[in-house]
């Protein structure tokens, strides 16, 4: 389970976030949309320890103009890096066919983050896996001691994903 200071997070987060016994983060928006967020350590995908960042919108209802939602997610990411450092790997889930929309909304929000300049972000977009388009990104602090290696390994992963996966 990742280390997070939930009290500190909730000082910055517009929506009240709870962390359950598994370490998952849960909150509900003013519009009744329930969100679940998880960070899971994965070493295989990047051949380097990275936390997979998962966001689930239970209701499937888009909220592109909910500024409090954007600020809550950015507060969670900020607290993740404050407490853990490391590498964040975001690969959009594909089950609902909304991955392109979700990915670009996430990027748009992250690019408005006040501390955006502290992070290196690399993306891979529209790579096909059995006719399903996939979207993903890594976010890593520019001061990370292994930045060059991490980016090289993500580029290797991106190059693999851009080829037809069989």
């Amino acid at each position, binding site marked *: 389970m990742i280390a997070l200071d939930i009290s500190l997070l909730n000082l910055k987060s517009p929506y009240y976030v709870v962390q*359950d016994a598994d370490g*998952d983060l849960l909150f509900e928006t003013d519009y009744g949309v329930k969100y*679940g967020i*998880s960070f899971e350590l*994965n070493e295989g*995908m990047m051949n380097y320890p990275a936390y997979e960042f998962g966001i689930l919108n239970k209701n499937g209802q888009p909220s592109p103009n909910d500024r409090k939602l954007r600020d809550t997610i950015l507060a969670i990411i900020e607290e993740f890096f404050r407490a853990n450092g490391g590498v964040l790997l975001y690969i959009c*889930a594909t089950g609902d066919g909304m991955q392109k929309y979700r990915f670009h909304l996430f990027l748009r929000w992250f690019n408005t983050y006040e501390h955006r300049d502290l992070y290196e972000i690399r993306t891979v977009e529209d790579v096909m896996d059995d006719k399903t388009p996939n979207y993903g990104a890594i976010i890593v602090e520019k001061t990370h001691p292994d930045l060059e*290696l991490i980016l090289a390994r993500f580029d*290797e992963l991106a190059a*693999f994903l851009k080829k037809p996966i069989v």
Partner: protein
Amino acid sequence: MDKRFTPRSNEEMLAAVRAFQARQKVMYDRLDTKLGKEIYQEEMA
């Protein structure tokens, strides 16, 4: 951990991607189950 960059074979990459996808499905299924409940239930108890 080996911090040198050593290219992986296609087979290694594919195995890593498939393992990731399997874990991702478990994660989203778990979140989906939790969000079906009252989020603040434990907090309020």
